[in-house]
């Protein structure tokens, strides 16, 4: 989609010195990193590490308290419309209307982006084909399986042709086959369409060697880089061992303090 302009291109996401508190509780502390365009980046962290908070900040559900967040160079606070137009999002809880048909759900979403009915029907067909659900277009969402609903949500997130897709634990609660399918579809978006993906998970087996990994632990970034280099640096066998070692070291350090 966007090839041929890499040289001038801004990072897909820039997080710069972001901290966030819920009252007295600190959810994020001085988080900084950026993601290059057309990469599959994994935000890896346990439950409660601050992943969902970071997502809510990127999607401007919360205002940034400290620091700065940019999406392709657009500040999420000052130029939120420009930024939000570039993002497709899949939230962790399901957000489809169960009583409406797949197509109706998609048309509604397209309308939220100012895309008219005629155009959105064409686009709906395309995005459904991407997640291999074109044959379910007229079904009620209620009659789909959990994995299929997730695929619909991914299709929906692609309707307005975003350059960045953010997904918050999209495979939680799904069986192995559905998980693999979804991961496959999303990886394809990166390689074939040059979409940037920001994928939050606590499921370490979803990380592959060439992925960009941001390890988040108790609101701090523990490590950032390609998975294979992270494994190398930690001197361990795989990313799971690297994650365990780094988080344990961080826990030990915070106990000393």
């Amino acid at each position, binding site marked *: 989609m966007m090839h041929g302009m890499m040289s001038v291109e801004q990072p897909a996401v820039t997080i710069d010195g972001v901290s966030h508190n819920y009252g007295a509780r600190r959810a994020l502390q001085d988080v900084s990193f950026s993601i290059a365009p057309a990469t599959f980046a994994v935000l890896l962290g346990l439950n409660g590490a601050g992943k969902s908070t970071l997502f809510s900040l990127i999607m401007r*559900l919360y205002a940034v308290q400290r620091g700065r967040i940019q999406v392709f160079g657009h500040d999420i606070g000052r130029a939120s419309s420009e930024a939000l137009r570039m993002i497709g999002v899949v939230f962790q809880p399901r957000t489809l209307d169960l009583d*409406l048909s797949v197509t109706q759900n998609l048309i*509604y979403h*397209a*309308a939220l982006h*100012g895309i008219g009915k005629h155009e959105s029907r064409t686009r709906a067909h395309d995005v459904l084909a991407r997640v291999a659900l074109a044959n379910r277009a007229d079904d009620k969402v209620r009659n789909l399986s959990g994995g299929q609903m997730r695929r619909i949500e991914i299709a929906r997130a692609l309707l307005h042709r975003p350059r960045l897709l953010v997904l918050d634990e999209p495979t*939680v609660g799904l069986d192995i086959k559905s998980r693999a399918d979804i991961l496959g579809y999303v990886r394809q978006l990166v390689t074939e369409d040059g979409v940037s993906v920001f994928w939050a998970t606590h499921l370490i087996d979803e990380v592959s060697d060439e992925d960009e990994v941001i390890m988040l632990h108790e609101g701090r970034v523990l490590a950032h880089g390609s998975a294979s280099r992270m494994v190398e640096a930690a001197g361990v066998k795989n990313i799971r061992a690297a994650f365990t070692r780094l988080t344990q070291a961080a826990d030990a350090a915070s106990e000393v303090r």
Partner: protein
Amino acid sequence: MTTDVASSSRLTGFSPIQYAICLKGIVWREGLRFLHQRERFVAALVRPLVWLFIFAVGFRQVLGVSIIPPYETYILYEVYVAPGLMLLIQLFNGMQSSLSMVYDREMGNMRTLLVSPLPRWFLLTSKLVAGMAVSLPQVYTFLAIAWFWEIEAPPLGYIAVLPALVLSGLMLGSLGMLMSSVSKQLENFAGAMNFVIFPMFFASSALYPLWRVREGSPLLYYVCELNPFTHAVELVRFALYGQINWVSLAVVGGSTTLFMAGAILAYDPARGFLARRGEPGGVT
């Protein structure tokens, strides 16, 4: 593509047509959801009809209604109470569509709405318009049934009442939206019933004329006078007879503006409930 965006400008780069598409989409979805929730429609009708067929009939003998504007003759109690019951429908509808946004089940839908790149005030206003729009067929169905019960307004009144209903529907919807943002206790419907719906409904001119209330308790009379719901009822009551109650129009208009501004402010990411509410998304 990588235009140098003068990012401080408030321009969103959307055309009026796209705004219209967005508004239409939000209303369309609300309508579809309403059509799918037949129980909600039935419940919305049964509630005022129970009042009309049972309560009003029983009450007729107890409460004589003298001639007060806009009525020009003696009227039956059922006739008096009809506008209040129309507003009862809108009150429940407003609370339901606004409060349901924050119930866990619907929380996700609020999020999908708010991540649209169109300005947030526009999204929230559209949501209010949508909620108000689905209240209209409910009210008119009630009016149709009431007509068979010989509660008849002048024919033109049925048209004249429409703008009044639009305004009162917006007022009650925005009140619900504002409430949903400020109070945690009201996030379940029982709480809303006890603390908002019942007091608003009973301390108003919906069930009894205010001069009657004054005879009973001057204090309550003033409470009723200050209750915006009273003015919504009176606005609709007068409109149904082709008249405009200017005081009520001013109060309802003012309240709508106030509640709407409050709700939009409350849903501002920097100030609003989304931030104060704490953790995102229940699970985790």
